[in-house]
């Protein structure tokens, strides 16, 4: 069957001058407010930082001399800076897997209805809202040799007090433990939200398919929350590379630089030694490290998913 439309004369309504639908440069005006904020607060500082990193910039007399890659060259030979890179990497390696494993374990354990589950979820998340100063005061007391809670607990089972914050080997792990205790709530909540998205029927089908507890976790739960897993890992990599407050307040980077992080190094170089060019160069290296680490994780997870 074919239908032929009778030619119709359409009388166009009189147009309001200037009003029409379609591409127009004025449509772009809608994004201008955002663009101003984005360019002014993100792109401009980013490139300005890069520019500063190429200069010998002295905040005292406000003098700046273009120095090319001299700052970067000097950083590569700076034992203290390289030490902070090593420390920061170690810190990320200690905390990120802990966030994933402990966060997921807590989420699995607390993914239940009822008052107990809700209370425990609130308790674990509660620590995340504390400020870093409160957290470090609490943990400084916990770690005190002799009279701290941990020392006393160890004393009960006959272990000599461990000087957590003043031992070169223990300072960084102690800061890592504090950090995990502090903000484990967020990954836990993200995992909980993901777990609650998994349809219950999948677990019932798995039960009928004779899948045991581990098989169900491995074959049903984990593949269902891959996206959240990737988000948590990338977010935590970016966040933990920026270790600063805990180490400043607990150990000031000591003993013997064993817990000095890159951000602490940048802070000290820029705001204590007033050597802004050198600090900016260190910032650029940190930026690069974070971008590469997050990218590698993202690509790896994409490949696994495909």
């Amino acid at each position, binding site marked *: 069957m074919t239908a032929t439309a009778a030619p119709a004369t359409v009388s166009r309504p009189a147009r309001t001058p200037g009003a029409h639908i379609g591409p127009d440069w004025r449509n772009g005006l809608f994004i201008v407010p955002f663009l101003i904020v984005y360019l002014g607060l993100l792109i401009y500082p980013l490139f300005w930082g890069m520019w500063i990193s190429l200069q010998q910039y002295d905040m005292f007399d406000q003098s700046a001399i273009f120095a090319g890659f001299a700052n970067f060259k000097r950083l590569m030979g700076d034992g203290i800076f390289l030490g902070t890179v090593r420390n920061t990497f170690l810190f990320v390696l200690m905390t990120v897997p802990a966030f994933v494993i402990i966060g997921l374990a807590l989420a699995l354990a607390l993914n239940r209805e009822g008052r107990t589950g809700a209370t425990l979820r609130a308790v674990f998340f509660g620590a995340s809202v504390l400020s870093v100063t409160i957290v470090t005061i609490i943990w400084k007391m916990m770690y005190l040799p002799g009279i701290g809670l941990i020392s006393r607990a160890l004393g009960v089972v006959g272990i000599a007090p461990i000087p957590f914050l003043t031992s070169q080997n223990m300072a960084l792990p102690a800061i890592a433990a504090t950090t995990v205790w502090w903000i484990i709530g967020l990954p836990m909540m993200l995992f909980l939200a993901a777990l609650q998205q998994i*349809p219950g029927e*999948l677990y019932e*089908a798995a039960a*009928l*398919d004779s*899948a045991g507890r581990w098989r169900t976790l491995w*074959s049903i739960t984990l593949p269902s929350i891959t996206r959240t897993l990737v988000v948590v890992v990338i977010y935590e990599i970016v966040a933990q590379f920026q270790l600063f407050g805990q180490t400043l307040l607990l150990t000031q980077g000591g003993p013997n630089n064993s817990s000095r992080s890159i951000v602490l190094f940048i802070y000290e170089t820029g705001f204590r030694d007033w050597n802004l060019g050198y600090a900016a160069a260190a910032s650029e290296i940190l930026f690069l490290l974070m971008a590469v680490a997050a990218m590698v994780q993202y690509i790896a997870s994409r490949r696994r998913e495909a």
Partner: protein
Amino acid sequence: MSSIEIDRVSKRFGPVEVISELSLRIESGEFIAFLGASGCGKTTLLRMIAGLETINSGEIRIGGERVDHLPPGARGVAMVFQHYALYPHMTIYDNMAFGLRNIGAARPLIDQRVQQAAKILEIEPLLARKPGQLSGGQRQRVAIGRALVKDPKAFLFDEPLSNLDAALRVRTRVELARLHQQTRATTIFVTHDQVEAMTLAGRIVVMNNRKIEQIGTPMEIYGRPASEFVARFVGSPAMNFLPVSVAGQGGRALLALASGAQLQTNIALEDLPSGEPMRLGIRAEAIRLDSEGSLPGKVEVVERLGDRTHLHVRLADDSTLIAEDVGHSRAAPGDSVNLRIDPDQAHLFDAQGRGYRAAAEARS
């Protein structure tokens, strides 16, 4: 294939008893449907057989072996879920192989079973895909395939057709019937759709308010409903109900309708409770247009279904009946007509909803 026995099973959710002392025997190879409105307990009963719900008392036996304490995977049953419940991150092949892998089946056996099921269900080209890339009908086949590969003692279907569109539902229904003829597998099919139950099942268990109302073949359920609930629930259009008073004539019930018309039935008077208000139940096909008919009325709505016509007729006492006429019925809204009720197809229901009808041999 195995029989399934449900022996005085009860189930409580907190203080609410959702199944009470229910007993039922499903024969080996039988296709049985649990039919009822939502909330009647049919899905709970199915889930108790599957092991997805615990039972509070009673016993469930599959193939003579008590299973109510076993986990779902150890009961030897396979279930097809309403929303398919396919594992979204696994390929279709892996979806079907998952259960066999978990019980440590040998790889060649798994492959053979999956290929065989895929062939029966015509999903061979889909094996490498993931559920997200499949249409609803294809997913349904995969869900059936996943049950098939396990070679289970019984198949449990939980409203498997309710997510399909009307045309696909009819087609899948026929395929399920064919599949059952091929496999002769013990099958329990939960549905709220009486057409699915009537067309697929060898026997139907009609459930209402957490109890079994009637168990019977589709034609027993349709032709000899044990209760008013069954009579209303099964059949389309729904059975007509009219208040009647009962008098006796030669030991048979003589019914007086509110409009004054009388109907001599073959229902034995001695079976009926005396002094109770009774209701006459009569299906549309037992009410015909007849110029000699004793029941005058006025046609209000004419529903043409092609092969037959349903006439909604208002009687003198203001009650309405649905009568059936031929496909090319000449009746039109507003017509005055006379109706004749076939007394052999009359059902009587007492105040409790219990059904009575003429014994088969008493029909004239």
